């Protein structure tokens, strides 16, 4: 029995540490630790609620935009602000854009090297690589000369002795299963995706002025529409949006999806990493309005124990449903066993971990800056797989069709979804689902403008005099990594309390008082480890969740606040 430590877990956002106990080439226990903390929820207290989106947007720059969206929705919910149709369409375009961009970056740049062996690509025959590429896609960059150039590029890098980002990885590990030609194709698409992703992000720049961190506005969007003026959003700007949507469609259809199927076909026997089997989605991307759940592209709900025959409804405002616990987190409650709904969320730092530098955490005590969110006491996985499982169980035709077709192509049963590979497959299918919707969102926007509506902002309740003295609201969205909720309380025009429960808080959560492990921890339990010095399979399972640690660990410390007052003032 060996206890291994992987810290830093690289190719993620933020700082994550995994300790795992390995026996007989299997992981028998796993400990997930979030090791960074910033305190943003405390920082937004007493601020103008209209400003808060900009603060909490900085929870994460990879999930850029989605925290801003959840925040303005929370304020709009609290103050009963309705947004114009155009604003909803623009928000949808931006949301779907971010999903597609983020999922592609995740697959190639964060997750890719868990499947693709870069050094093996040096052994590939460019002619056969070309034949492979042309057999699965019409993507034009597929000549043998093209793949030979890519191979030469990797070769010169390796021969220079300066391997840069490729240095000292697990190359040659027996858990890599692709033939050299598929590896070479993967490396080529890694580089192409790196160049492509910056193009689709331009859609955010048009409506939000920049990416990362585009601008938002409570009550709508600040990007003004006027088809008869060239200093705001007019047809030229919309055409640029449409062009980028079309390019995204081609990239997903001709590169991402064929790659996923090609790679999955070599790994389809590796169906470990399924984890606890509970799935949660708040639902989102409203084709009409966030107040109309029937218009959501992703249905909400909960599936327990992989049982697709029953979907439970979810209520974000019910104090008994979503609660956060702190039994193994570095926070203290009055009642250490209590679970608190975010509107009652109370957080007090209580670091009882080892003093740095340290070798191991102690899972019997607190061991993470991440809290333990639970739905009716149950740990929940969130993300593309959760959304697809719930939509599948709810009978969503389009999603069910995508899943059934994929499983048929790979000759896998539906239970294969409950795995590391299933998580990765669901994320790719979701990219396809949303890139298909993007053109529709664009058409909705154009049609609404054509019908004579160019409004993007509702200013009726912009001024604080129009607000009730006390209000509370919840804003939610499906983020690329899963269900995202922001809960706000407003008192006399200022934020009096703010809590965000984010996707990676659900997924990376430590165990709770009853010993129930979080999704990362439970998904590692049946993950094989061929070589304890090179835990490739562990990385593969953790990366399949697309960890985002800055999101997960941003809670507050009243004690730290006192220290600071002395220091700064």
């Amino acid at each position, binding site marked *: 029995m060996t206890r291994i*430590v*992987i*810290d830093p877990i*690289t*190719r*993620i*956002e933020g*700082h994550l540490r995994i300790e795992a106990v390995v026996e007989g080439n299997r992981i028998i226990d796993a400990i997930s630790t979030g090791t960074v903390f910033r*305190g*943003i929820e405390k*920082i937004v207290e007493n601020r103008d609620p209209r*400003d808060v989106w*900009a603060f909490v947007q*900085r929870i994460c*720059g*990879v999930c*850029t935009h989605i925290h801003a969206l959840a925040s303005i929705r929370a304020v709009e919910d609290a103050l009963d602000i309705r947004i114009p149709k155009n604003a909803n369409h623009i928000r949808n375009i931006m949301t779907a854009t971010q999903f597609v961009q983020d999922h592609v970056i995740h697959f190639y740049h*964060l997750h890719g090297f868990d499947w693709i062996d*870069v050094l093996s690509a040096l052994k590939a025959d460019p002619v056969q690589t070309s034949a492979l590429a042309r057999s699965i896609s019409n993507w034009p960059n597929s000549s043998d000369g093209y793949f030979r*150039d890519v191979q*030469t590029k990797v070769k010169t890098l390796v021969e*220079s002795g*300066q*391997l*840069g*980002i490729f*240095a*000292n990885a*697990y190359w040659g590990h027996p858990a890599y299963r692709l033939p050299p030609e598929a590896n070479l194709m993967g490396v080529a698409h890694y*580089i192409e995706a*790196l160049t492509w*992703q*910056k193009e689709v992000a*331009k859609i*955010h*720049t*048009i409506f939000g*002025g*920049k*990416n*990362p961190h585009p*601008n938002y*506005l409570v*009550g709508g969007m600040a*990007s*003004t529409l*006027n088809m008869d003026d060239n*200093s*705001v959003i007019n047809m030229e700007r919309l055409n640029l949006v449409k062009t980028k949507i079309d390019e995204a469609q081609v990239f997903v259809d001709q590169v991402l999806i064929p790659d996923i199927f090609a790679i999955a076909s070599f790994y389809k026997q590796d169906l470990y990493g399924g984890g606890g089997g509970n799935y949660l989605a708040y639902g989102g991307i409203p084709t009409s309005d966030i107040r109309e759940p029937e218009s959501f592209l992703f249905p909400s709900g909960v599936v327990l124990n992989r049982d697709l025959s029953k979907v439970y409804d979810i209520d974000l405002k019910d104090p008994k449903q979503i609660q956060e616990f702190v039994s193994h987190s570095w926070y203290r409650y009055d009642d250490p066993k209590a679970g608190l709904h975010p509107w009652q969320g109370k957080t007090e730092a209580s670091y009882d971990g080892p003093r*740095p*530098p340290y070798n191991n955490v102690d899972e019997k005590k607190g061991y993470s800056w991440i809290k333990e969110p639970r739905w009716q006491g149950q740990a929940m996985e969130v993300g593309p797989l959760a959304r697809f499982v719930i939509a599948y169980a709810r009978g969503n035709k389009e999603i069910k069709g995508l899943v059934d077709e994929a499983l048929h192509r790979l000759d896998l049963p539906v239970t294969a979804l409950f795995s590391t590979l299933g998580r990765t497959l669901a994320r790719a299918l979701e990219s396809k689902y949303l890139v298909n919707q993007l053109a529709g969102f664009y058409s909705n926007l154009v049609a609404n403008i054509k019908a004579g509506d160019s409004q993007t902002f509702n*200013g009726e309740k912009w001024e604080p005099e129009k607000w009730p003295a006390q209000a509370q609201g919840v804003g939610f969205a499906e983020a690329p990594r899963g269900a995202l909720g922001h809960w706000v309380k407003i008192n006399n025009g200022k934020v009096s309390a703010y809590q965000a429960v984010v996707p990676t808080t659900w997924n990376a959560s430590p165990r709770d008082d009853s010993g129930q492990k979080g999704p990362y921890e439970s998904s590692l339990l049946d993950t094989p480890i061929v070589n304890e010095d090179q*835990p490739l399979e562990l990385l593969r399972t953790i990366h399949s969740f697309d960890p985002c640690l*800055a999101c997960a660990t941003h809670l507050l*410390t009243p004690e*730290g606040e006192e220290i*600071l*007052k002395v*220091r*700064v003032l």
Partner: protein
Amino acid sequence: MSESESYYQLARRRGVTRRDFLKFCALTGAMLGLDAAEFPKIVQALETKPRLPVIYLNLQECTCCTESLLRSAHPLIADLIFNMISLDYMEPLQAAAGKQAEEVRLKTMKDYPGAYLLIVEGSATLGDGGVYCTIGGKSSTELLKEVANGAAAVIAYGSCATNACVQGAYPNPTQAVPIRNVVKNKPVIDVPGCPPIAEVITGTIVHYLTYGKIPELTNLGRPKAFYQHRVHDNCVRRAFFDAGQFVETFDDAGAKQGWCLYKVGCKGPTTYNACAITEWNDGVSYPIKSGHPCIGCSENNYFDNTPFYTRLAMIPNNAIGKDADTIGAGLLGLTGIAVAAHAGMTAVVKNREKNGKESNHDKNRN
């Protein structure tokens, strides 16, 4: 180091023609705002130097700076990291993990003492003995000191690294501080912004790569090439400011004609950044152009210089008025806003900016 291949050799070996190589050099030079006479220096640097070893640390941050770096259009990020520099350590991108990742970092520190470039994204945290951000079980602030010790220079990349950004806003629960508060023994180049524009950071890196020294800096320690002008100076909506044509509320008739956003809170007049010239995402737009006021994300303490949507809020030494309306009313009554009022207002802004700059400057260096 001298045994390594130069960028030019690598480029030639992978089939880039000399003509394309020279074109690339010219584009890089133009982006840096260099005179054409300087281009041969870029050519020479890239022809003869090995790929610069770079260690990139992610500390207390949100990774928006990493994401922005990936958006670079000239040079393309793939060209930067595969052909121009050797990005030996960068958690979000590197293939190695855990102890193998740390081994690479240590090897670069050992093989290139005093010669590698350190880029830091994120703030240092001084609270509670470093428990608010650990990497490999180590306090990230200690790690920063260790890596900075052997670096040739340090780029503090993004507002977390230059001014502690959102986590440094009141009440700063983790005692987040800028990099230059911790790294005192090396030149620190501040490249602020939340995040900075992609071509601004890659431009700064290529400048260093080309000339082998840090670029000329403003009195706040930022590259002059990108931070010596206010966003306001070159703003696409500037003519409306000068003409007194302001958006009064979002989406009003003025907004639909692209009028100035000063009265809905724009911080362009007090923000030094390249947004209005370089623009974002390969020149597509920037916040003001897309209708939202600048929030001043490259300025120190911008999250405490709020609320965002009210002009002149919480600005020290503001003796005249609270916003453009008040100024207009004071000078001319409510009938309209004339050029004379705005000349006066610009003077107020300039004066305030000078004062604000000095106070931020002091705080950041304490």
